[in-house]
């Protein structure tokens, strides 16, 4: 039976080496999670700029997930470290202006964490689902 409930749309920027592989592993291990994520493969979480996150929200994403290698595991040595600062500040600023904190999420998922990936996907989806569709920064006309 398919459940008929509102399915949020979440843009997920996943680094190629850890989190995208972790998402693959979730599939290989058949861990099930809601069909809400739209995964965009990026080389590194360090590739994800504040502009990109805002663009996803502007385009109508109900939530955004950025996921990279655990600190210290970055395939590119330190990309995730820069990402951590950038995204921490962005997250804080977005919350400051009243964007619900649950809309923008950052996680670390390694290539061996298929289960964790599914759990993060579930957690993010359910939190966003509870908020309802995004309104604040969505461009529409």
């Amino acid at each position, binding site marked *: 039976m398919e459940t008929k409930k509102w399915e949020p749309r979440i843009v997920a920027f996943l680094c190629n080496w850890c989190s995208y592989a972790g998402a693959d592993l979730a599939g290989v291990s058949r861990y099930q999670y809601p069909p809400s994520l739209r995964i965009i493969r990026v080389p590194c979480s360090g590739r994800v700029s504040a502009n990109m996150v805002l663009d996803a929200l*502007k*385009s*109508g994403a109900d939530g955004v997930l950025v996921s990279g290698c655990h600190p210290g595991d970055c395939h590119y040595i330190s990309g995730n470290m820069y990402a951590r600062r950038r995204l921490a500040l962005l997250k804080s600023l977005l919350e400051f202006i009243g964007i619900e904190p649950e809309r923008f999420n950052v996680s670390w998922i390694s290539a061996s964490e298929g289960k964790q990936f599914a759990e993060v996907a579930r957690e993010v989806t359910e939190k966003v689902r509870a908020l309802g569709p995004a309104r604040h920064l969505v*461009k*529409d*006309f």
Partner: protein
Amino acid sequence: MKVYKISREGLDKWIKHWTESYDVFGPVEKNENGMTDWAEVKGLDEISTAPGTTKQPIKTFYLPQPETLFTFTSRGGEPDSDVLKETLDEGRPRVLFGVRPCDARSVTLNGLAYEEDPYYMANVERTLLVGVSCREQCGTCFCRWVGGSPFGTEGLDILLIETEQNFVAEALTDRGVSLVEAGGGAREASGEDLAMVESMRQEAEQAMSAMPDTAETLRSKDLMSMYNADFWGGLSESCINCGACTFLCPTCYCFDIQDEVVRKKGRRIRYWDSCMFPLFTQHASGHNPRGQKVQRVRNRFMHKLKYFPDRFGPVSCVGCGRCIRECPVNIDIREVLRDLLGVE
């Protein structure tokens, strides 16, 4: 022209009657620093009586920011994909109540450039202007330098003049007469009233410094000597190239057009542009004929004070003083005007 007399209460009733068929806007106190701005009103008591001009000019009603010109979809596959559909907004007519004469003039001046623009003209059609004369001039007012008057009627449908107890309403156009009739309760003004208004007008005009024939003088000057005058460099040095002056100017009407596409829904919008911005004249090649700040600053003034008069007659400035008031670095168009008039 028909002249009426109306009490304060009567004016309030006008507004209330008009709201049945019009959206009525008036200057409303927006925040604690005493500045007023345009907002929809339902009665006279909402309207600010502070002297001077509103924060924003009334061009926001004629050149909305943004104005959708066309819509389209770009989904591909569908028959109407990528086909532009015109969206001329013929919305509800509206009355702007409490327009200062300088602002009202801007509609006429801008209309010289926009007379063939259906979007602009549709807005002119649907917008009725009820002006109010200026009894007090501000430190930044200079309408009498550029062909205006604190009692000017150009562009207005009705001009209100506040007398000691009442208002005198000059219905300047047929639209103005119908508005008065729609408002109801007005009596025709007496000869006494007319005489009083005339003396008030003279008093107010004489209180302001005036510079006659500015446009004629500027038109008669040599363009290249103005262009090459050496004060531009010093003037532009303090400019930060923001758009505060142009965006708050009632007669700056430049725009850019861009397509916005969201989730394959698209629209072509017109939005304000400013000659102060480096991108203003940038070519697709990357070349920019006005790449330097000095060129842009010069263009702003030359356009208002030379190119526009040369083409249309009057200067493209109504002397409202907003640019002087709001410039973060105190660039004062009156100094530029004096300098230009002094160019030999």
